[in-house]
């Protein structure tokens, strides 16, 4: 840990230690707000902002937080940041904040924020904590943007509201896949993304829990 450079702290969470596909953090919002790219972008920006804003103060007062009430202290700092972001979104981006509905408030309990403050900001000096928070925010945004664009292109033939694939009812050839906008497709797509990443980086593959009798055949 101590030998990691700032650059590694920033780039590791992008793919190698990605919060969504490896650490299983921040799943709820990653799946729920990716029906279109614009919403996914807003959510990514909001989450990265909360993550960075709350990592700083928590890291600054890390030596003064008693261990027994640390969860409550951290959650209250995070919740205050979320309230600020929520009020900003409602004031300047009212329509987007309507489509995000309760999910902005739910950034509070997004396990990604608490997971990083608990796992990293609590043990590291402020600047390093900020870099780590920003890197994790970027890694989260990467998955959200990927899923948001895939789901919008195949589900509605659009990207950021512009028609990319001409649909059948406009005289084109593309039949929108309505399933892509529904809940199951989000699960399937994330599963496939995890599979793709683990095929490229085999060190992320989970070990077998039980070794079957003919284990030699499976371990190749």
């Amino acid at each position, binding site marked *: 840990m101590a030998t990691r450079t700032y650059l590694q702290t920033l780039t590791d969470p992008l793919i190698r230690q990605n919060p969504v596909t490896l650490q299983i953090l921040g799943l709820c919002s990653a799946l729920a707000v990716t029906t279109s790219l614009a919403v996914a972008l807003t959510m990514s920006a909001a989450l990265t902002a909360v993550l960075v804003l709350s990592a700083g103060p928590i890291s600054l007062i890390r030596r003064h937080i008693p261990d027994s009430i640390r969860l409550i202290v951290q959650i209250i700092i995070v919740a205050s940041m979320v309230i600020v972001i929520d009020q900003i979104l409602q004031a300047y981006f009212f329509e987007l904040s309507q489509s995000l509905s309760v999910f902005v408030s*739910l950034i509070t*309990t997004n396990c990604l924020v*608490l997971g990083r403050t608990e796992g990293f900001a609590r043990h590291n000096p402020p600047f390093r904590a900020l870099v780590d928070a920003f890197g994790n925010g970027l890694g989260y945004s990467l998955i959200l943007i990927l899923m948001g664009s895939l789901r919008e292109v195949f589900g509605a033939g659009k990207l950021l509201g512009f028609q990319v694939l001409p649909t059948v009812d406009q005289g084109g050839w593309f039949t929108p896949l309505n399933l892509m906008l529904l809940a*199951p497709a989000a699960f399937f797509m*994330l*599963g*496939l993304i995890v599979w793709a990443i*683990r095929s490229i980086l085999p060190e992320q*593959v989970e070990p077998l*829990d039980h070794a079957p009798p003919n284990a030699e055949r499976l371990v190749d």
Partner: protein
Amino acid sequence: MDLWTLFLRAAFVENMPLTLFLGLCTFIALSKRSSSAIGLGVAIIAVMSVTTPINYLIYKALLAPGAWEWLGMPDTDLGYLKLIAFIGVIAASVQLLEIVLDRFFPAVYSAFGVFLPLLTVQCAILASSLFMVERDYNLVESAVFGFGAGTGFAVAVVMLGGIRGRLDYADLPSGLRGLGMTFTLAGMMSLGFSAFGQMVAP
């Protein structure tokens, strides 16, 4: 809307993990064995059916617009504080539940293990309180809604735990093992649950 319909709607039509994507982190992380899945399910039902009505009372008595009218402040709207208040209530009731179980039912307490404190950051629990405010339920409705949402979560997590336990012995492609397969399974369960969508008229 009568209470039975509300219960069915909360448990199946708007199933927290499978159709609304809430509480997924614990849903995926703790469903490795059906035994831990059952523990998690019971804990969720208990916490949700307690916190949703308590949060209703706190919201109506202290935070809702006009709650301070009797003090001569009819325009005060403390609604923006609901997030902090709800989180506080959830953390406190989880802590209380932990103390009570530890004192009176040590066997149950040791069965829960690490799951209890984790429930503080469970988004499904916070979400059921936020939905309660958004949809303007009354006290009885919010209790039924909390219980129904908890039951739906428990049913889903126990089912997923059972399937994953069986899959331990399956010969999966190595990249799909663990997390990848779990997402695919959850997707299939979600397809199944979407059939409940027509069960209750919105």
